[in-house]
């Protein structure tokens, strides 16, 4: 078990390193100078040059990379060029916000979508299946930012039920905090239902088609037993993998939702950093997202045998 974890992490190290290298050099190729951006349209070349040297941007690019990498290994992601805050702190604070919304949305969506997907699979080609599949396809097809705008228009503006902007940490003030995250959660929830129903249905269909289900049925086991003993456990494992993937992907996709609802999350931090050419923040965010993605996949793999007796970790 431990060996498995270690070897998997060993495999992840080159991946994350590669991400770090690519990110570092790519963003420096992009036109746009953080110093000039900070100083604005009337800055003199001297003051821009002075700021560049303050920020260490005048150094050789390899030297900059060496400095950054050394610091990263010491757990220091640097400081933001625009806000002067430590990047690690910034990333973690913003991540908490995004992760809270994503986790709740995916958890709720799973609770609805996984049973729905399984039922659709059991009644394959029935009216119910057709309806569920169509609804899922529809939800999947609506761009989240458009859905978000429509939800904002309806609940925030027309009905006036929910505050339209701002953010209050749920940890700090649970009742108010909840109000601010309801709309973003609803948006992602609806979208993820579309994704997860299809996945759950497909997993269940796959299992239903397997020989041992036919065997179990042929043996005369009651349908209920077949379902609970054989179908659901086996269909759940691949679904779990996919939920893991969805979680990882959503960290990227949440940027647009955070923009619509002005949530100070990781996605918006990254987009703002890209516009502001805040190199340390861009690097920190992307490295962090890569690590999280790898970790989520690892955890999913580790959980796999718990649900799927066929898989043994050695």
């Amino acid at each position, binding site marked *: 078990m431990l060996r498995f974890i270690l070897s998997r992490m060993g495999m992840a190290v080159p991946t994350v390193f590669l991400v770090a290298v690519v990110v570092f050099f790519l963003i420096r190729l992009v036109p746009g100078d953080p110093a000039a951006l900070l100083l604005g349209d009337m800055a003199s070349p001297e003051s821009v040059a002075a700021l560049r040297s303050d920020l260490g941007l005048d150094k050789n690019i390899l030297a900059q990379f060496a400095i950054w990498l050394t610091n990263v290994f010491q757990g220091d992601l640097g400081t933001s060029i625009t806000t002067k805050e430590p990047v690690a702190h910034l990333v973690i604070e913003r991540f908490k916000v995004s992760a809270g919304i994503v986790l709740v949305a995916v958890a709720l969506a799973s609770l609805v979508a996984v049973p729905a997907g399984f039922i659709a699979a059991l009644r394959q080609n029935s009216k119910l299946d057709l309806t569920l599949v169509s609804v899922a396809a529809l939800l999947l097809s609506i761009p989240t930012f458009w859905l978000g705008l429509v939800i904002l228009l309806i609940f925030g503006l027309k009905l006036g039920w929910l505050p339209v902007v701002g953010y209050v940490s749920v940890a700090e003030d649970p009742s108010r905090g909840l109000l601010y995250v309801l709309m973003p959660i609803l948006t992602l929830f609806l979208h993820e239902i579309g994704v997860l129903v299809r996945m759950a249905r497909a997993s269940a269909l*796959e299992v239903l088609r397997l020989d041992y289900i036919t065997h179990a049925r042929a043996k005369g086991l009651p349908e209920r037993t077949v379902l609970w003993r054989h179908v659901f456990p086996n269909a759940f494992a691949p679904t779990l993998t996919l939920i893991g993937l969805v979680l990882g992907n959503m960290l990227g996709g949440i940027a647009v939702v955070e923009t619509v609802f002005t949530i100070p999350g990781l996605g918006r931090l990254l987009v703002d950093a890209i516009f502001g050419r805040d190199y340390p923040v861009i690097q920190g965010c992307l490295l962090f*997202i890569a690590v999280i993605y790898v970790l989520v996949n690892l955890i999913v793999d580790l959980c796999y045998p718990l649900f799927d007796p066929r898989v043994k970790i050695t």
Partner: protein
Amino acid sequence: MKTLSANAMVGGLFVGAFVIAACIGSVWTPYDPMALDMKARLAGPSIQHLLGADEFGRDVLSRLMLGASASGIVSLATVAIATVLGTALGSISGYLGGWTDRVLVAVTNALLAFPGILLALGLLAIFGANKYGIVLALGIAYTPSVARIVRGTVLSLREREFIDASRVSGDSEMYTLLRHILPNCLAPLTVLSTSMFGWTLLSESALSFLGLGVPPPAPTWGNMLAAARPYLAQAAWLAIFPGLCISIVLLGINLLGDALRDRLDPKMRGMQ
């Protein structure tokens, strides 16, 4: 099977309408999609402008039609790039094995460790936020998915008898790969390409929404939607029509993709 193929029909209908609109849009539109007409500024849907006019008085229907062809071409080009690159990488990786495989898998995994849209954001910044940049960025972002599937198929085929037979009969590696292995990847690739077409359409509009997509004034559905946001209250149709177009085409692609999946490749089900 009957009911689901009804879904496929609907999907085909939507996609067909999109293709037709795009084809017409690239040669003819009711108005010049770029012509300003300040008098018609934010005019609502009417006989003159069936779907209204935008903040510069440009005809929304004409822009949607031109946008359909622009979005369609961007998506097609992206899918083409991802498929060609991904197939090349995946088949080399799977067929050669060894260190080549290990390195390519590491690179693929690194790319997959990024949500597609983030990777595209980064790449876009380098290639420049224009049509070509978008195509390259999204194309590269989706390459790993293709490579992974092709590699998997190649691996599973490599040890089969007919491949051995081809090798033994003295065919070159290249010939074996092209003649016997790649054709077997076609089914999963067709399914994946269909989804990728949808992803590209969606990603392009999301990037435009964040201000990083195909730059105006050339219309795409994404940047039309982004441009419509400030006018949401006075001219909701500016946001509604492009949003509807994206949703309907995506729905069509998803439904059609499901049908293709059922028909071509029952194993692929469950893959995103």
